[in-house]
């Protein structure tokens, strides 16, 4: 069971949250200049690290904020969490 630290509500149990997927890739700046591979990678290739990954969780049964957390995919240790601006 994860304990996610909501900067607004404090440490809360995972059951109060809904998982929102990994942080989206950054959209390439000038899409008229980039090649197809860059565009396709942006659309389809997520980060899949054996280690810290950044992902979004929604504190739906709490304050309703979306958080971005950094969690280790090997241990579930949460290294960082912040409210999305």
């Amino acid at each position, binding site marked *: 069971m994860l304990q996610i630290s909501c900067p607004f509500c404090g440490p809360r149990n995972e059951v109060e949250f809904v998982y929102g997927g*990994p942080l989206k890739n950054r959209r390439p700046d000038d899409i008229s200049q980039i090649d*197809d591979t860059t565009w396709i990678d942006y659309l389809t290739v*997520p980060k*899949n690290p*054996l280690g810290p990954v950044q992902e979004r969780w929604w504190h739906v049964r709490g304050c309703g904020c979306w958080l971005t957390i950094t969690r280790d995919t090997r241990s579930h240790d949460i290294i960082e969490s912040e409210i999305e601006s």
Partner: protein
Amino acid sequence: MQSYSIFSLARNALSGHQNWSKAWRSPPLKKRYDVIIIGAGGHGLATAYYLAKNHGITNVAVLEKGWLGGGNIARNTVTIRSNYMRDESIPFYVKSVKLYEGLTKELNYNLMYSKRSMIDVVQTYPKLREIKRRMFNGDLHGSAYERIEVDELRRRIPPLTGGGPESRLPILAGMVHPSAAVCRHDAVAWSYARAADDRGVEIHQNTEVLQLLRDSTDGSINGVETNRGTVYADKVAVVVSGHTTSITDTIGLKLPLKSFNLSAFVSEPVKPIIDVIVNCPDIGVYLNQSDKGELVIGGAPDAGQSFRRDIKQQVFEDAVCSMLELFPSFKRLKLMRQWGGTLDIAHDATPIVSQTDVQGLYVSAGWWGGFKAVPAGGYTLAHLIAKNEQHELTAPFSLNRFKRLDFILEAGTTTAT
């Protein structure tokens, strides 16, 4: 290869089972092979077997970081079925189910293959519509699916006493997939290993691939770095289920895969009470009863990306609560063991059997429910490696589909597999 039969059993019983020959050898690791297969799971071993049998390629090494058949092939809930959604997927799974049916004989190994129907317990109208759509698509490809009413459903699954008209999600109907089966998962790995070894393939356990190696001039693959030194080959197949990107990352090859944890648990053994595979897609649990009498139960995958091989308490609780809604009498069962495995899934949830941008490098990945796919997955990957062209069944599973943004969207029929 020593043939297994009633006579060999009797003969070996007389000598106190001391004289069985080893099922496979442990030869020294050579410097060079024609083909290296990374991962001795179901898919890797089946690929090695079909390379040798169908294509006469026997100078093959299967490299396994742990022990043979210790990955997901030993961790799954053994459901074999072909009720997929898409025209590109169904023929592949139909072929795999067919290959499974003849496998015990072909490999001279008792897989305890048991055809027993999968029955979906449907509790919402969107799910019913989705499964009916599967039924019509399956009809086109010879994969049967049929609807039964609630009375018949309860007759066929006696402990299904929950989900009545007063409940949170009343049961609406059942959907039966008659060609579904279960079989002994370890035996799949062991039988392919034994048959591949018999044809000259080498299996090297405790041999972890740390890095892929590329030719410095033309960039093609030329081998792998392992914890036991460098091994060379012009063809390398990554068949590591769940850990694909950890290996392809070593040469900067980007693949549209994410890894997740899927888990399962079993109850204490009880008398036979369920003789079909029960799948409850709306509440997220599925189960079958093993030959030993244990109920084998699986739930939803853990939410975030994960490389863990245990079960998360919350996933466990969710699955148990869901199960008790429909099977209240199971409250008294003791749960004996629980475990998990790491699986990867592609951007469109369809598997990848493909060449890559690196010449000589092949991947077989994205096997979310890939136990059922072991025979056809190995069969088609061997074809691809041997001929450098796709088998027609896996032509749609090539990485090229992503280049054309032409996805084969294939969400699971069960919560997970």
